[in-house]
């Protein structure tokens, strides 16, 4: 790929920057020492940034996978005849739940589950469930009635209709919901450092607590890049996965 082409692929160079800083932050120690001469050590050293990233990503992955599975399952249930009565309730839960500040959900999980990664993952799951649930319901309902009628009339069973018609057609909208959910999860998990989880946010809090601004900057830059790279990756995935016949996904 030629240089200008490379520049036009933001995913590639932000990812490159992220990986470079993830491994190479200690190499920037002289820069931090020059900017903040009184701070020792100049680079966060309680653990490697790679370690922090893996822990952070692990929690986000765990929470998001669970939220995706539960969200899609609930949405399927809500759109079946059996679940119609619960539909209004599920809608209400989703809208009311999204009003709750993610930080509050995280904080409330602690008295129930103690400190460490557990409350963070539970909070990630609960809060991440809602965008996926909302989008999955919208996507499933957007499947044209004529298509479902034809499918039923030709002899596809209910499970076959769900697997071959409804879910593939709803996939772009569901993916958009997963993207929102994961992006929020990365931020919420970062706050999870306050309850004992190990994430890229940990240097931020260490820095705030010990008045070490370089730590704050290092943690903030890496967390921000993590979120941006993930969002761009999802955008690329959405473009790649667009079925030629289905409606384009919302931005």
């Amino acid at each position, binding site marked *: 790929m030629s240089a200008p082409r490379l520049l036009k692929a933001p995913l590639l160079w932000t990812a490159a920057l992220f990986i470079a800083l993830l491994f190479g932050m200690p190499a920037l120690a002289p820069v931090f020492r020059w900017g903040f001469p009184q701070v020792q050590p100049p680079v966060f050293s309680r653990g490697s940034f790679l370690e922090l990233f893996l822990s952070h990503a692990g929690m986000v992955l765990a929470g998001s996978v669970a939220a995706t599975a539960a969200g899609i399952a609930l949405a399927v249930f809500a759109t079946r005849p059996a679940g119609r009565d619960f539909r209004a309730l599920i809608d209400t839960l989703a809208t009311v739940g999204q009003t709750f500040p993610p930080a509050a959900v995280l904080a409330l999980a602690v008295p129930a589950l103690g400190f460490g990664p557990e409350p963070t993952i539970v909070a990630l799951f609960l809060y991440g469930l809602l965008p996926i649930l909302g989008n999955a319901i919208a996507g499933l309902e957007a499947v*044209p009635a*004529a*298509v*479902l*009628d*034809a*499918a*039923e*009339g*030709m*002899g*596809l*069973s209910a499970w*076959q209709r769900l697997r071959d*018609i409804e879910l*593939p*057609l709803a996939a772009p909208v569901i993916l958009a919901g997963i993207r929102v959910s994961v992006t929020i999860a990365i931020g919420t998990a970062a706050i999870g450092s306050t309850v004992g989880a190990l994430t890229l946010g940990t240097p931020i809090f260490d820095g705030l607590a010990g008045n070490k601004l370089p730590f704050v900057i290092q943690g903030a830059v890496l967390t921000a890049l993590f979120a941006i790279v993930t969002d761009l990756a999802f955008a690329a995935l959405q473009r790649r996965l667009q*079925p*030629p*016949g*289905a409606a384009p996904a919302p931005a």
Partner: protein
Amino acid sequence: MIEIEHVAKVYQGRRVVDDLSLTIPDGALCVLLGPSGCGKSTTLRMINRLIPFDAGEIRVGGEDIRRVPPEELRRRIGYAIQSTGLFPHWRVEDNIATVPRLLGWSQQRMRDRVTELLELFRLDPETYRHKYPHQLSGGEQQRVGVARALAADPAVLLMDEPFAAVDPIVRDALQGEIARIHRATGKTIVFVTHDIDEALRLATVIAIMERGRLAQSGVPLEIVENPASEFVREFVGREAAGLKSLALRKVSERLQPGDGAAGEPIEAAASLRDALAAMTARRTDRLPVVDAAGNPAGVITLADLVR
């Protein structure tokens, strides 16, 4: 053969289909005809159990349809609807091969069948098999929809106002195709429409419905010339029915022996309406008639048309 016996369907207190009995012989093209809300679509969808019926019995090929698992029944019956319901995320070949795939056909067999059907509908297989529905015109989508319904070679084909949403020129072409395919394959077709002219053109037997009940059933000529009730007479077009009747009868039925007419002859197999059109255009009251081989067969006069 499709036997509908004393079938009823009640929906929200209203008898949508009321004590309907109808027998559709093998190989017929039976048109369920009537105004909106008369129950014709409901009746169609009861045949493949998309709508359950509340009373009576329906037998397809001698078998009570309630004894067969619904999915199995539907895979044996072709189903084509007005908005086609083509799966937007699948190519034409995958759409057409839907039921064969459900039945477990081999890849090769499915591929051949798709080619065969596209050719039947005069769509170039290599051009069309890889397209997506949104890349097709309205008429092309309808053809693919019907091809999909025929893919597994069912004995019965159900069609629910399939041509109502296309423009008149395309509709005319599609009607011709269906008539041609019916003659070629001999399948039993049940066709729902509210358009009397479409019914008269396509049907071998017409069942007119009014408010859930069968108003009259019979061959097209019977419906037009001997309407059984005021409703049927109204629906067929009252005085205008006369012209429809002319379209259904042939010159061979009314011609007289003799040779007292001059000018371009008309074929004995042509309709009386075509004869009337020719007479009007040439400002004459008589035409010479020839048979299919071109030999003189007689004369037809204006008086013969209204006998």
